[in-house]
């Protein structure tokens, strides 16, 4: 496949080129040292070289809050608000976030396909970028290379002087059309190494998890865990939601709204009669980790964690999912070695 080159000095021009005929979402600075995807309007404000964003691009397909129904209480009638098709270019997406989008696609198309998600997902084009793993990334361990361009219409690989450009799809060529890119035939610079690793592949992990249901790590983690749900909410593959009714002040109309929810939250499994099905924080921690490495993975063969490191980076209690998993691996291997 042909490769091109985009000098660092022309990145803003390239963003401007994209903006001329597309809606573009891209990473921007947020707060004192964070980044977030936002609608681009000033090409100079777009940041391509960043460690990770607060939320992933998930928020565009499954918004943090979304009206499912508008209802009229005087007529006892409800209607579905229109969902605008996405039709946007997502610039600067890391490979693990795109892998997460594919996992969400699976969740929202299997069983009952969901119109809201699929409509927003419609017309999305992705321009990936490579990244240098920091102390939280471990995507390599779940099989997602920083240079992986699956699902991308264009891919930018970091180079000392700019970006090496791949254009794997026709959509990508359309995006590039009219913007002059020099051909480039040198090999890509070698990948930077990950500093975080899960020690075994998913195939073995299923077994490890199987053996770890009653492992002490769940209780130990629960001592420090605040049950705040942050780890769920920042995760690009978490998709659970809560549904709430809002009634306007005149009590004549309102909305049924859904918002992101998380299995670490105490009320998540509460049912009538005040019974909780996963009341203990330890059980919730196990559920969270099993959701990432066992339950859906047993069916699909894929880890449902994409190694972005967000849950660990964002946890105020400094609980690391990698450490939890590696501890399970170590202990299950030790148990096996005792047995054999």
């Amino acid at each position, binding site marked *: 496949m042909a490769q091109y080159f985009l000098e660092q000095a022309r990145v803003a021009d390239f963003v401007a080129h994209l903006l001329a005929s597309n809606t573009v979402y891209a990473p921007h600075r*947020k707060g004192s040292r964070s980044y977030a995807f936002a609608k681009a309007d000033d090409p100079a404000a777009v940041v391509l070289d960043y460690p990770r964003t*607060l939320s992933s691009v998930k928020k565009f397909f499954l918004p943090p809050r979304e009206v499912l129904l508008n209802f009229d209480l005087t007529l006892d009638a409800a209607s579905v608000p229109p969902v605008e098709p996405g039709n946007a270019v997502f610039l600067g997406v890391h490979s693990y976030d795109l892998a997460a989008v594919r996992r969400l696609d699976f969740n929202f198309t299997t069983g009952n396909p969901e119109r809201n998600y699929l409509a927003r997902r419609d017309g999305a084009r992705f321009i990936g970028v490579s990244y240098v793993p920091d102390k939280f990334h471990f995507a390599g361990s779940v099989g997602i290379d920083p240079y992986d361009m699956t699902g991308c219409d264009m891919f930018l690989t970091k180079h000392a002087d700019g970006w090496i450009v791949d254009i794997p799809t026709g959509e990508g060529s359309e995006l590039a059309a009219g913007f002059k890119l020099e051909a480039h035939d040198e090999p890509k610079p070698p990948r930077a190494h990950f500093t975080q690793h899960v020690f075994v592949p998913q195939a073995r992990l299923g077994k490890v998890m199987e053996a770890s249901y009653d492992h002490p790590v769940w209780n130990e983690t629960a001592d420090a865990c605040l049950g705040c749900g942050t780890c769920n*909410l920042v995760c690009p593959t978490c998709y659970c939601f809560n549904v709430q009714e809002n*009634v306007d002040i005149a009590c004549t109309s309102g909305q049924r709204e859904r918002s992101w929810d998380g299995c670490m939250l105490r009320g998540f499994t509460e049912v009538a009669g005040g019974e909780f099905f996963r009341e203990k924080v330890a059980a919730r921690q196990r559920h969270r980790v099993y959701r990432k490495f066992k339950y859906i993975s047993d069916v699909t063969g894929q880890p449902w964690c994409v190694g972005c490191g967000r849950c660990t980076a964002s946890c105020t209690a400094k609980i690391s999912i990698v450490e939890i998993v590696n501890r399970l691996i170590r202990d299950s291997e030790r148990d096996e070695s005792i047995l054999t």
Partner: protein
Amino acid sequence: MAKPRVAIFDFTGCEGCELSQLNFEDQLLDILAQVDIVEWREAMDDKADEYDIAFVEGALSTPDCIKRIHDIRRRTKVLVALGACAVDGGVNAIKNLHPIEEVRATVYGQDQYLFPTLPALPLSAVVKVDYNVRGCPMTQAEFLRVFTSLVMGKQFEEPDLAVCVECKLNENECVYERGMICLGPVTRAGCNSHCTNFGQYCIGCRGLVSEPNLKGMNEVLTSHGLAVDEAWKRLQLYNAYRLQGVRA
């Protein structure tokens, strides 16, 4: 259906919650259209004998307060605690941490016996409270949710999540990243993480979640450079009453 008769009362507090009620400029007329306000000392002269809903602001801190709150409970069908002082005792309750005689002597010296006082109590310590509108000042959106629930005759389900949840929905940069400490992880959501949306740390005004991991929180605070007693003081700012007898 007759309009619900509403009364509004205040005890020990800053009256910021009542002011926040007046600050519903856009909705005030809608609110007035749905209820009859029959008593509200801060805004009107009228008095009434019975009400369907009483909104009560402030903590209880004198023997007279206790008498009045019993009286209000007898006259009302539903009692709503308005704001941190009424719900949890609010900042008033910090004084409970010091021996009461010492506090009075500090403030009034030899004249202390002119002014009777009790430890600051939330309303629920003395009477049954049906619903809480938390926050300092009360969270306006929660007031509207409680209000519409009451008008529609449904129960109001209090959120039992950490402020972190809303903070993440709003995609804020965590204030710990800015070198500040924050009580969001153990504080009850419902304010749409108002403070952290504005770059300030959560001071915990909405009270603790139902089962806070205080030991864990204390560790988080100390690991971010606060001394243990300082960390505990931050937790007590709005939770002095609830944490009575709990040690750091």
